[in-house]
């Protein structure tokens, strides 16, 4: 393999990985805040894509207006889900919580199917165009936008968690809920905003993906890759989730190039099982110590 091809693969691996990283971030943020893993997160991406589609086609909104509006609607949906589904059962056994979020995913997916059937829709974005040649590597602008968007989301989140009062409150809740409550932090509103934030990030992933692969009810399948990325990252670290996403994207792309499509499809799940067995706290996470 020549270095040009290797470089080209690295580029596509990183852009696919960026999407995985976004989904992984959207899984880890509410998990850190409220201890609940949202198995409906993939459907948040589906929802984002379809809301965008509806806004763009039914109301004729331009892309740059449609995107923020979609993120806002998705965030509202995240709030609803947290208040109506997650909050009432947060103290229930883990099984209940896992299956309830799964059920929400099924409901969203089948509602989308009832409304739009299994058709493939396309979403026009102003940046879709011919690849840009940069030396030997050809860069698809849609992929460049994905990488740029992921980088800016990560940058904004870093600033938010490090510098704002509410970001610090969210970190405090993630460390110790009771202590945070005693310090006067509204734990409920932290939960709610974590879910809103995650839903918006998930919707962004759906919107970014839509111009490339089109819109179908199966976009939600993305959650599997997001879960693998989050597991590689260790589930407790935002940086780890991003690194895990990029790593997974690269691994998958190179595995596909060397060993073919079947291998490419199976690799993520083998990584998932291997990591959970031998390094359950991921490459970047820390083990939680529990008193019995």
């Amino acid at each position: 393999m020549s270095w040009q091809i290797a470089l080209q693969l690295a580029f596509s691996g990183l852009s696919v990985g960026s999407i995985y990283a976004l989904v992984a971030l959207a899984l880890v943020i509410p998990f850190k805040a409220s201890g609940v893993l949202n198995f409906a997160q993939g459907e948040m991406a589906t929802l984002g894509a379809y809301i965008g589609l509806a806004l763009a086609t039914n109301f004729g909104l331009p892309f740059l207006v449609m995107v923020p509006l979609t993120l806002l609607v998705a965030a509202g949906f995240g709030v609803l889900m947290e208040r109506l589904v997650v909050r009432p059962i947060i103290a229930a056994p883990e099984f209940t919580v896992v299956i309830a979020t799964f059920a929400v995913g099924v409901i969203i997916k089948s509602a989308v199917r009832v409304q739009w059937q299994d058709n493939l829709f396309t979403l026009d974005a102003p940046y879709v165009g011919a690849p840009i040649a940069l030396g030997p590597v050809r860069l698809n602008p849609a992929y460049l936008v994905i990488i740029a968007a992921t980088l800016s989301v990560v940058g904004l989140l870093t600033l938010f968690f490090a510098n704002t009062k509410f970001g610090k409150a969210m970190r405090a809740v993630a460390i110790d809920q009771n202590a945070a409550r005693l310090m006067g932090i509204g734990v409920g509103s932290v939960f709610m905003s974590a879910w809103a934030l995650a839903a918006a990030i998930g919707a962004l992933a759906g919107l970014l993906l839509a111009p490339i692969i089109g819109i179908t009810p199966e976009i939600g399948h993305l959650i599997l890759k997001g879960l693998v990325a989050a597991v590689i990252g260790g589930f407790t670290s935002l940086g780890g989730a991003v690194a895990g996403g990029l790593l997974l994207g690269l691994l998958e792309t190179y595995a596909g190039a060397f060993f073919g499509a079947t291998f490419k499809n199976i690799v993520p799940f083998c990584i998932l099982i291997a990591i959970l067995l031998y390094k359950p706290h991921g490459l970047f996470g820390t083990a939680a110590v529990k008193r019995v």
Partner: protein
Amino acid sequence: MASRVDIAAIHRRLAFPAIPKHLALSAALIAVLTLVPLAAGSYHIYLIELALLNVIVAIGLNLLTGNCGQISLCHASFMAIGAYTTALLMTRAGLSYLVALPVGAAAAALLGAGLGFPARRLSGLYLALVTLGFLEIVQIAIEESPDLTGGIRGLSVPRPHILGFHLKSDASVYYLVLAITVAAVTVGANLQRSRFGRAFDAIRQSSFAAQSLGIPPGQIKLLAFSVAAGFAGLAGGLFTIVVGFIDPTEFGISASLRHITFIVVGGLGSVVGSILGAVALTALPELLRGAKEYSDLVYGAILLGTLLFMPRGLKGLWDTLAKLDWRRVKIWP
């Protein structure tokens, strides 16, 4: 409060084999089910067969999830392994169904035990992830090896011969399924009340407390996984001859969620619950035949609604109603 221990009652409860609380009811139910082929058309026989299969799956899964407290999102894969093993042994190796069916169930149980190894170290969420990964691997493996499994085009299975008797009629298949289901329910119910069943319950409530009482959680979880997988594999093997055709879409994540819905709606940790849930939810799509595209939506809504508002399921509802003192209930204010 000092409690008197009724030793005789405990002995009755632990008697082996199980004496069902409602022996007459069970006998009547089996009698009615035996008479079904005389009255019902082939479509209704087929539906009842599916319900019986689902009862087998639900009983296995309920032992694992309801009693032992382990999440499995890959029960459809165990069913797939049972179905494909049975089908391939019959069509490729030319084995009799009577051999292929138990071998299929055993293959599923073996893989279940294999998956039980991670379960010894992982719990809750992480186990859910491993089982989800396993489901995807099985799915891809079936789709990507079309030479063996027929890939996404599926595999058709002819009606088998058993001891020289061709299971040609719907009724003959039905009686086979019914007999195996009754056997499976009996085994499941007895297992739940046995030493192992109580160990399952102990581990669900507290793994550490169970360990301090001399129950080895690792081995017991392994057992729970292989039993549940074996039940699913058996159901898969029966599925091949009931439907006559298998393809990977039958055994995806939505099938797994359907199995979980059976036990959640029926009642976690209860054999009666498994039966109620499986039968009620197999009948449901039939009621929704006019609105087929809503079927997944309704399934999801029922699952979520049960988790939120009726966490003990139909069995819990049944118990509540049975305990209710009807003379004190005011229907009208």
